């Protein structure tokens, strides 16, 4: 982690309300290029909402958010910046969200062709290369429903990477997978981290978090309760909430 670099994500005093519920409370967060940040916390703590704010899938009500030099305004009033941000920020979802009516190849080539304006040939070459990288180059012409969950999630990863993002968001990428398929997805993410991709990951895989994260952020009731290196957070948690959360999740 190189802290002198200017951040690719800068959140300042970010607040999100959902009716009377205060989902995110005065969040301050800088993420620098190349950094791998893992966000942990109990379900309902606001960790998914936090990363969904970064690419504008959730609106916030006050505070400021800059992503790669583009400023997102509160209450979704920045459609142009939003469009730019979304082409530069990739996302992998818990439920994969592959397009079921398109083949694996077409899932991956759609956005590069329609958004970046690539030719079909360029887009398909990139897609093939990415499929090889995530270990499923032989599945290009299948449809998502013909693949296992682990394969689908790797296609989803390849689909996001095809846009050549500067930042990748992962929203519980292994939570919907059968246990025997979690490893193959984490392996692909591990590779990506090694190559220097900036990543923000919401996960319950604590072993993985300890291994790949430069920084762990613990969210409690919409606030960043504690953050630090994996060693600091897992071995010597300072906050009582962190201690009780870790005691619960690490018991298994």
């Amino acid at each position, binding site marked *: 982690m190189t802290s002198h670099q200017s951040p690719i994500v800068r959140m300042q005093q970010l607040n999100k309300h959902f009716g009377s519920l205060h989902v995110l409370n005065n969040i301050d967060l800088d993420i620098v290029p190349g950094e791998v940040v893992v966000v942990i916390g109990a379900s309902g703590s606001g960790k998914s909402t936090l990363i969904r704010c970064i*690419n*504008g*899938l959730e609106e916030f009500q006050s505070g400021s958010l800059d992503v790669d030099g583009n400023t997102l305004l509160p209450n979704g009033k920045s459609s142009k910046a939003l*469009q730019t941000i*979304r*082409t530069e*920020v*990739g*996302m992998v*979802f818990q*439920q994969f*969200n*592959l*397009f*079921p*009516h398109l*083949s694996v190849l077409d899932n991956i080539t*759609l*956005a590069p062709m*329609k*958004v*970046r304006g690539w030719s079909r040939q360029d887009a398909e070459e990139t897609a093939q290369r990415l499929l090889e990288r995530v270990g499923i180059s032989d599945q290009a012409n299948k*449809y998502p*429903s013909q693949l296992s969950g682990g394969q689908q999630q790797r296609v*989803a990863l390849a*689909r*996001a990477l095809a*846009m050549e993002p500067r930042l990748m*968001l992962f929203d519980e990428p292994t939570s919907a997978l059968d246990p025997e398929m979690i490893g193959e997805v984490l392996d692909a993410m591990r590779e990506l981290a090694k190559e220097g991709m900036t990543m923000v990951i919401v996960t319950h895989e604590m072993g993985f978090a300890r291994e790949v994260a430069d920084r762990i952020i613990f969210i409690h009731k919409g606030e960043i309760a504690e953050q630090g290196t994996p060693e600091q957070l897992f071995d010597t948690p300072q906050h009582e909430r962190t201690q009780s959360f870790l005691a619960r999740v690490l018991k298994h």
Partner: protein
Amino acid sequence: MDVNFQFDWSAAFGSIPYLLPGIPWTLLISFGGLAIGFFIGIFFGLLRISPVRWLRWPAVVYVEVFRGTPILVQVLFIFYGLPQLLGSPINALVAGIAAIAVNSGAYISEIVRGGVQSIERGQREASLSLGLSRVQAFRYVIWPQALRRMIPPLGNQGIISIKDTSLFSVIGVSELVRQGQIYIATTFTALEVYFMVALMYLAITWTLSLVLRQVERRGLAGQ
């Protein structure tokens, strides 16, 4: 019951040459009306789910009016009522097609709305997260999937509209029922002729069912 009554097969078969010319008219009104109704349905169905409130209410009014009034009244209004307004008569065929169009359009707009709204939110989110605009997300991701889900209810509506055209005998279109009525007026063989008329409707709707089953199977193969 008249125990001596005998179903006269020769009368039934004898009516066929008189009934067959009605079939093209039945098909023309049905499919002509449905084709227009499909576009009306897409138009109002998409208005109905627009994020802009004042765009939604015309769609709500349209659906309520044309779904909430009988198609017989609609065709009578078009054929007898509108000419008084326009000052010139309307061709019965045109009136029939128009009635199927506006009526099926109301139901189809609900089918379109339901189809689009049935697509999981994650599909839109994944599209937007890839940088697709809202229009692109709709065109390349949401709509193709919605269209596939709309096939069974659209088939249903097609069958209903085909049968609805039988009502248009009242405005004198020489469709199936009208042809039967004309024939019965001279032969007094109502049982046999209406039996054959029913069989012919069944042949049309059953064929459509079979075709739709194939379309559905092919459409779902990719999923």
